[in-house]
């Protein structure tokens, strides 16, 4: 999975050399920035149920037709699956914050996303709305430091863009 360290190691290996000073410098640079990401990951992990629930509620509020007979949020099973999907995205964002790259989202969230939603006949607009709600809901310094919030929002944007 792609991260600063694996990128550095891959290129050093391709050249057949030991990690050079500049390799070590770039790893150190990523470690210095990591504290903010870890903070965001921790806050998100602690509150993931709440965050997902609020985002889900916002989406269903905007697209209330989804509750009607035969729509994607009509039964209890469907409702719990919708919430679970939002939670999956939040969990992948948590992973991306830990890794420091978009690898987990790319590999486990975005690859094949379009095909799955098409074949299940699911609308993507509610997902965008849910993530957009989470994007505006986060607040510094109430929820986390501004640097951490910045990292978190960046990943929310990344997922939102993947839906377009």
């Amino acid at each position, binding site marked *: 999975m792609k991260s600063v360290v694996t990128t550095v190691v891959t290129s050093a290996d391709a050249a057949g050399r030991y990690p050079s000073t500049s390799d070590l410098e770039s790893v150190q640079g990523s470690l210095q920035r990591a504290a903010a990401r870890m903070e965001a*990951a921790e806050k998100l992990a602690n509150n993931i149920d709440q965050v997902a629930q609020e985002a889900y509620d916002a989406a269903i509020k905007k697209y209330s037709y989804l509750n009607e007979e035969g729509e994607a949020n009509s039964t209890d099973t469907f409702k719990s699956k919708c919430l679970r999907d939002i939670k999956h995205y939040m*969990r992948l964002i948590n992973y991306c914050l830990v890794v420091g790259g978009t690898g987990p989202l790319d590999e486990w969230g975005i690859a094949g996303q379009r095909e799955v939603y098409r074949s299940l006949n699911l609308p993507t607009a509610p997902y965008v709305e849910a993530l957009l709600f989470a994007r505006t809901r986060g607040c510094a310094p109430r929820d986390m430091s501004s640097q951490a919030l910045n990292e978190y929002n960046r990943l929310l944007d990344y997922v939102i863009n993947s839906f377009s």
Partner: protein
Amino acid sequence: MLDAFSRAVVNADSKTACIGGDELQSLKNFISEGNKRLDAVNSIASNSSCIVSDAVAGMICENQGLIQAGGNCYPNRRMAACLRDGEIILRYITYAVLSGDASVLEDRCLNGLKETYTALGVPLQSTGRAVGIMKASSLAHINNTNSEEYGGKRFRKMEMKDGDCSAITSEAASYFDRVISALS
């Protein structure tokens, strides 16, 4: 290839759980102790040719048959191959130390190494001994415990801040042990 962070992610994903609490705490330690790790990598990489040639020379000292006609280090060509392999193994160990995970070492170096050596007739026991010597001298370099008494004319001490490096030392030792057990 994984590093300490993506290893945590892969483990958490298999349980569909978020990364928080203890796991996150150990990653935070990884970050705060990061400079020790980078110093460790640097001290192995900067002394690599010394570590490798010492290990191969030590292996031969203990088993002179290797450089006699018919031995596995006998013509220069085979001795050179031996030094090159020592350097390759040590290089993958530095990658593992840098990433905090053994996957790069396992996937790119150890996978099939024993079979290759068996097919080529490389003596596994001697190879393991050379890796053992590399382990001892690398750990001494990480801790900066080499002294003039042992180093003699070639004694060299890196300019590093002293501190408690027991965690990174035992981690590095575990990578060397992995190589040794993969070869035995």
